């Protein structure tokens, strides 16, 4: 198949999936906190990552832009985990779509930057993201007051528990990347 056709198919599939998640399924995803935070948000991130896997090499990113972009990605993740942002996103679909666009961009940039940046920054970033996810999970599990008025406390705790486990997996992934990076011979 000619490569132009493959590009078109790929972009159509990614855009189509993003549209389905963001429009027809939006109400379903916004119904509970785990669906919103653990399915919709990561799904968008994943679509961004898939696009990044394919096109990241087209965009050369060098120091200090890599660091600047990683800070942007980190800030986006933090912003979209804040209770106020989550509440607003659930209430106003347009605001939720802003989250979708940001997550698509964050996913795309994550893979683009991580592929090109130096080992040290890659590991430091992965470590910080794992820690952030883990601690957010811990906070949601520990906290007995409802943080997002759109959901309920059980959903909050369930989301927390799953984030906690995800954080552990991320940390294991970071250590794996770290040790395999050291293990590679020149």
């Amino acid at each position, binding site marked *: 198949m000619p490569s132009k056709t493959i590009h078109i198919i790929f972009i159509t599939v990614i855009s189509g999936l993003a549209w389905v998640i963001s429009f027809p399924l939006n109400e379903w995803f916004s119904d509970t906190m785990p669906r919103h935070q653990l399915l919709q948000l990561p799904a968008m991130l994943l679509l961004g990552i898939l696009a990044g896997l394919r096109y990241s090499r087209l965009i050369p990113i060098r120091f200090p832009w890599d660091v600047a972009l990683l800070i942007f990605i980190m800030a986006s993740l933090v912003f979209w985990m804040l209770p106020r942002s989550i509440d607003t996103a659930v209430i106003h679909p347009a605001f939720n779509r802003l989250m979708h666009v940001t997550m698509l961009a964050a996913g795309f940039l994550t893979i683009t930057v991580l592929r090109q940046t130096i080992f*040290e920054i890659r590991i430091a970033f992965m*470590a910080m993201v794992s820690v952030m996810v*883990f601690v957010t999970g811990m906070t949601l599990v520990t906290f007995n007051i409802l943080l997002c008025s759109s959901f309920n406390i059980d959903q909050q705790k369930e989301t927390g528990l799953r984030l906690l486990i995800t954080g552990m997996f991320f940390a294991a992934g*970071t250590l794996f990347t*770290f040790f395999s990076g050291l293990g590679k*011979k*020149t």
Partner: protein
Amino acid sequence: MLQLSPLEIKKNRTFIKVWTITFLIVFPLLIVLGLLMRLNQGEEINLGMDKFYVLMTLHGLGMAGLLFSTSFAALWYLIGTRHVKLNLGIGYLVYFLILIGVIGLAYATLLGKFGAGWYLLYPLPFKNAIWPAWSTGLSIVSLIILGVAWLLGMLHVLYVLAKEYGGLTNLLGWQYLGKKEVKKELPPIVMITTISLIPGVIAYLAGAVFLVMFLMQFFEPTLTFNMLLMKNLIFFFGHTLVNITLYCCLGWVYALLPEYTGRKWVTNKVLVYAWNATFFFIIFAYFHHLYMDFAQPLGLQYAGQLASYFSAVPATAVSMFGVITQVYHSKIKWGIVPLSFLIGVGGWAVGGFAAVIDATISVNLVFHNTMWVPGHFHTYMLGGVVLFIFGFFFYLSHTREEQEKDISGKAGFWLFVLGAHCFIATFYTGGVNSIPRRYADYKGIPIESTHLIGAFLARLAAICIIIVIIGFLIMTFAILVKLIRKRVAITEPVQNS
């Protein structure tokens, strides 16, 4: 041997000069904080509780951070001029991030009155703290910045070494354990660096977790985390950081001492087994900080005692035995550098032994949170790490002949050692007499004899500290005169027979 251009050598020297001067400026300031604390405990001045704890926090955090950073910088310099090329851009990035972190901490403590102690004593900063909330926030952010700086530095050194020596297993020296001939010799400094820094990276992860948890609670003060979990995370981070500071210094003792004794000190099976065992024990020894926490599972308490005992044996015994075999009948000329290393190893041995005593559960029941605790860690920090650092500075600034003939430098050194050990002895004596640690003064202790002994020892300590400061100033003068006037001595290893 690494080939460097004159420009690269010059750049590396400038880098280490920056670190040397930073240490020589910051270290005495932190000593003065210690002096003020002891004067307050001796009832010679009246700081008030709030100021005492501010000084204690800045002193503890500052000293632990400064010594680790300087040990790491020296290791960086020796590795970067002898074994692999390191990226000085990253080196300076680390330096400036550390500077930002330190300024933040100084601001939060001195102006914001943050006084929770060097391991932050969770949940103290959030429960009726007498300092404003912003200073807690600033301290946490500053510590996160420091952590990121150290992490970047450690990752860089490890990564470059791994590329040069063919992967992690080779860095750990495992090629020496097989039957095959070793193709590329592994210098002990490289193996020790690896074994120090990998636990450092893992400890950093734990450190980042508790710091971000602190940050969450800072934003949402009604949150409360599991205190035992927090304490485990904090001590895993803090204890590992202090441990690897010592090991970083040992790295350069292994590299530099042979230049004075003329004897080789190479990697072999014994060294590999010993240091790899340390790699394991270093991670579990911190449990001895939690003996008083009844909620900690009993098994972990025993694990803590065993790991503390075992961690003392391999690297310590092997390194000390190594130092003795290096100097015994070696016709060494006792210039200030080997002298610092030898006396430093002595401090390490004494402090380590005092630590093992305190890590014995039955003894800890009595010694816990008495002055014995600052006694043991000041022995291997002030009487060990600081002497190693001075040895390194003299190595940098003085030629071999100057090292042997510098009378003033040696006089300063002996004054420092004398003052330091007498000062430390006041801690041990305090511990044996049940004087509690972290008391701004002892006036409130209802047992009058304890109050009087505590105050008397503190006054005695203040005199010793003044001797330490005089010794320090003499050594600093000797180093700075040579360092500024002259090019730094080239650190090429002598080829020993």
